[in-house]
């Protein structure tokens, strides 16, 4: 699946030691993009010349005895809602296409580059991040590298598929309701949605200010932790950015999980799960030595509250364009934004009260367990154009229900690592490892344990 591109930590090690050049690695990654992106459609912009120039600069620094950083020469891509200097931030839309190019890089893009990463381009997504399938009406669908008739998941589908296809070693995505976790599951890679407020969003185009998280994708746990450590740090320009010290995850990765109490979420997180999702969850639970089943009460209503908050907040964000340029939105996004604009305010007030109540219930549960397990998606990657899903006995609309297990968790900002498993159909599916707020390192430790147990199957 991944061609010749090594893991990010191996690339950086080779480049820093002079065993490989950043230019050669960048050239190889650009060749993979040239060979495969016509079919997969992961990128909206490829910055080939700039990437080669940046790679040469890294090689020059190494020849001069400098250390370019922990991601030296690592090819990366970012979802097309991150500002990249000199490139128009599209956020998957036609509406923003006439805006001027970004004047500077988003904070997280700057941090990747400061660590020596080489940015190859901007990646396809659902329009304004409002979707779970990356079937973009303006820039086309991103296809799943495991089966090109299927969706890569969304909304960060281009970012996930590019990692799965070996075009880049690390991508950055965003997750409001599941947009890192769903494509991780569909594409068979690792994804991290950190605690709300952990990674600053400065220089990224918002979807729902109150729910937006940014985070990385990678093909192994070490790479995910490496990227996460590079990305951490407070930024006062993001109102939600938490002023906390950097808490590196890499040093704890090999600690094992002996002392950890692991719970498997039941009730809402079982509802409609396919046999493949159940099997994946059971394998992860067994490898964690966990038989403890636990419940997060009212998760269905928490998901409903996230659903409503999303519709109304996104409508408020896009109201002026809804009024002046309704025809320039894709139909799925436009209709949901109009509907969100009509939602009574009392629903939002109640949703925010439910949010506090639900966060308290989760905190209580975390007194009994250290991490929670749940499926990332109820099914493997859906077919492009698929309208409905079978959830248990019910036939339901596909797009809103792909994220039914992810939405309650991001609603209260908990950190989650998604780990990939294989299925009999050779299509991947993901499991969520959910930790208490600010315990990303714990979730990553569990993921590293599962990787060592060899039950995971990354692209």
């Amino acid at each position, binding site marked *: 699946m991944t061609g010749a591109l090594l893991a990010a930590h191996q690339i950086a090690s080779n480049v820093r030691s002079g065993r490989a050049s950043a230019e050669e690695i960048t050239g190889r990654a650009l060749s993979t993009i040239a060979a495969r992106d016509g079919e997969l459609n992961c990128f909206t912009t490829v910055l080939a010349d700039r990437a080669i120039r940046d790679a040469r600069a890294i090689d020059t620094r190494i020849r001069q005895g400098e250390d370019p950083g922990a991601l030296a020469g690592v090819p990366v891509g970012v979802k097309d809602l991150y500002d990249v200097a000199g490139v128009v931030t599209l956020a998957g839309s036609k509406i923003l296409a006439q805006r001027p190019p970004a004047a500077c890089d988003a904070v997280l893009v700057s941090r990747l580059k400061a660590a020596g990463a080489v940015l190859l381009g901007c990646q396809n997504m659902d329009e304004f991040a409002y979707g779970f399938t990356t079937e973009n009406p303006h820039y086309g669908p991103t296809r799943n590298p495991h089966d090109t008739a299927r969706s890569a998941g969304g909304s960060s589908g281009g970012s996930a598929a590019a990692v799965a296809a070996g075009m880049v070693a690390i991508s950055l995505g965003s997750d409001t309701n599941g947009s890192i976790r769903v494509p991780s599951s569909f594409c068979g890679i690792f994804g991290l949605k950190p605690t709300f407020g952990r990674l600053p969003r400065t220089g990224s185009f918002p979807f729902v200010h*109150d729910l937006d998280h940014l985070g990385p994708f990678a093909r192994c746990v070490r790479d995910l932790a490496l990227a996460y450590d590079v990305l951490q740090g407070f930024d006062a320009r993001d*109102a939600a950015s938490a002023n906390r010290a950097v808490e590196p995850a890499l040093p704890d990765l090999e600690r094992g999980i002996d002392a950890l109490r692991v719970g498997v979420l039941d009730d809402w997180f079982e509802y409609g799960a396919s046999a493949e999702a159940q099997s994946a969850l059971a394998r992860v639970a067994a490898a964690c030595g966990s038989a403890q089943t636990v419940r997060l009460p*009212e998760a*269905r*209503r928490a998901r*409903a*509250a996230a*659903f*409503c908050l999303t*519709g109304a907040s996104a409508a408020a964000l896009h*109201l002026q364009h*809804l*009024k002046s340029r*309704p*025809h320039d939105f894709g*139909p799925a996004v*436009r*209709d*949901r934004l*109009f*509907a*969100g*604009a*009509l*939602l*009574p305010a*009392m*629903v939002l*007030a*109640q*949703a*925010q*009260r*439910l*949010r*506090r*109540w639900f*966060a308290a219930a989760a905190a209580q549960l975390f007194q009994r367990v250290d991490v929670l397990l749940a499926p990332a998606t109820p099914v493997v990657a859906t077919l492009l154009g698929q309208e409905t899903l079978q959830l248990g006995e019910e036939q339901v*609309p596909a797009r*809103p229900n792909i994220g039914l297990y992810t939405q309650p968790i991001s609603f209260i900002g908990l950190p989650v690592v998604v780990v990939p498993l294989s299925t009999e159909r050779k299509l991947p599916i993901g499991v969520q490892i959910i930790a208490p707020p600010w315990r990303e390192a714990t979730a990553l430790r569990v993921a590293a344990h599962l990787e060592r147990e060899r039950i995971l199957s990354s692209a």
Partner: protein
Amino acid sequence: MNDQATQVAAVAALIGLDIPAQYRQSVARQLVALQEQAQLVLDLRLAESTEPAPVFLP
């Protein structure tokens, strides 16, 4: 235009939003779906002392 689409147009007009006629029916379908979720939220009885989650930090 069906009843729901007409109602959607009327409610939208009350808040100064003109939804083009060709979209009203599909907007009505989305609003019905949203309302189903909203009802789940509104049906939960929370203690009167339950405050909203913090959304503003001065």
